[in-house]
């Protein structure tokens, strides 16, 4: 029998669940609940409104910090990519900020600004921003000079040049920054919530940890993965498809 590209991922997914089920039965302990138990808890949490509430709050923080980091990162990245002197001046800063551990920025933000919402968002932005800048800077350096010359020759002006010549070339870099950014921000937000907020997924997970409630932890993880997949297939893939329709 020939396996198509579509059935293979499905099969591997079923295998993973089967392995989990098998291991749960074998160990037979509260520390590894079976998929069925996790699904039950997942459903109960949704019905009680607990999971949607905390997931929603975490998502709001994600959207806020992600938008700020992407907007600032694109602007600064383009500026550094276009201006060699500016780049030489700020390159050290970037390296330093890239290497500060996430936990350090989170703690410092809370210490300096208090356990408030804006401090939480700021901590996430500071963690993500250098990555976006570096990616967009690379993209800006790789811009096609021939096309920029053409735009100058035909008097495109700043707005037209940006929209029709520069932005389409930056698209793959923006998408790369978006994907790696979402993955990174998710993880950091949980730590931010765990350390200094009284709601959100990170806060809930911390609570379950103290109760040793593994089934709930796994149920929240499932919700988490589902949201990330939904963003990928409902938002990012369609954007890619539209933006790259000109490709052969």
């Amino acid at each position, binding site marked *: 029998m020939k396996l198509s590209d579509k059935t293979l991922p499905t099969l591997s997914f079923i295998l993973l669940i089967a392995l989990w089920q098998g291991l749960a039965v074998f160990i037979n302990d509260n520390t590894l609940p079976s998929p069925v138990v996790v699904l039950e808890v997942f459903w109960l949490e949704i019905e009680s409104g607990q999971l949607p509430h905390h997931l929603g709050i975490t998502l709001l923080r994600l959207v806020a910090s992600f938008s700020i980091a992407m907007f600032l990162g694109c602007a600064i990245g383009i500026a550094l990519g276009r201006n060699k002197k500016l780049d030489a001046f700020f390159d050290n800063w970037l390296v330093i900020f890239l290497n500060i551990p996430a936990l350090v920025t989170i703690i410092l933000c809370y210490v300096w600004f208090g356990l408030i919402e804006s401090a939480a968002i700021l901590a996430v932005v500071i963690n993500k921003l250098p990555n976006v800048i570096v990616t967009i800077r690379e993209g800006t350096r790789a811009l096609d000079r021939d096309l920029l010359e053409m735009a100058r020759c035909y008097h495109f002006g700043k707005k037209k040049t940006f929209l029709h010549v520069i932005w389409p070339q930056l698209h793959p870099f923006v998408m790369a920054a978006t994907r790696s950014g979402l993955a990174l921000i998710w993880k950091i937000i949980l730590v931010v919530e765990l350390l200094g907020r009284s709601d959100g997924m990170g806060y809930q997970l911390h609570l379950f940890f103290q109760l040793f409630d593994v089934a709930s932890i796994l149920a929240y993880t499932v919700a988490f993965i589902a949201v990330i997949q939904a963003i990928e297939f409902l938002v990012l893939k369609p954007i890619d498809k539209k933006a790259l329709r000109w*490709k052969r």
Partner: protein
Amino acid sequence: MTDIYIDIKNKTYTTADSRQHIAISDLKLTLPENQFVCLVGPSGCGKTTLLNIIANLDTDYQGEIALAQHHIKPNIGYIFQNPRLLPWRTVRENIELALNSPQPDIIDSLLDTMQLSDIQHRYPEHLSLGMSRRIAIIRAFAINPDILLMDEPFVSLDAPTARQVRGLLIKLWQQRPHTILFVTHDLREAIALADKLIFLSAAPMSVVSEVEVNIAREERDNEEKIERFRQQLLTQHPEINSLL
């Protein structure tokens, strides 16, 4: 429109091993209104540098490029060696973007003349090089420039395609006369296209000789005539031989 006056006193640039290289010195050209002028010179003599100066892409030189009577910079349509189309915009969008205001009638008529109406909503990556070159020609004509610069636009096309695009270019130019400065190192191509040939020396670039081409337009696709003119030219102007 009026004649274009080119006077470049000096153009130098610094090479990688930090020596001063004189690319152009004392180059004076007058391009009469609506004439088709071909620049012929050895490769590496700085023809592209000259076109970039005229197009105001290179401003690091001493001299002046102006519409003869007004001392204002001419409006330029540049047809580059590579078509330089935006691959993420359709054929029609590529032309529209070069225009300051929407002029659908002009674009329609240009597409029609160049036989590209059918593919105007396709993306450049799906087209052949010959088609892309024709779109670049349309884009340059569409802005109705004071001068059209063409930098070996038919290089790397196979002979029949090159002949077809050349024919279409001349047809378009006869419908909409413009001053054209066409750079090539192919003497036969230059004779087939030009009203006037200007031969350039290797760097530092200067004018070696200027020759009027007096073959009637309808006889330009007669290869024997072109070849006879070429032979005659080479015997009358022996100094050209070293430039080809």
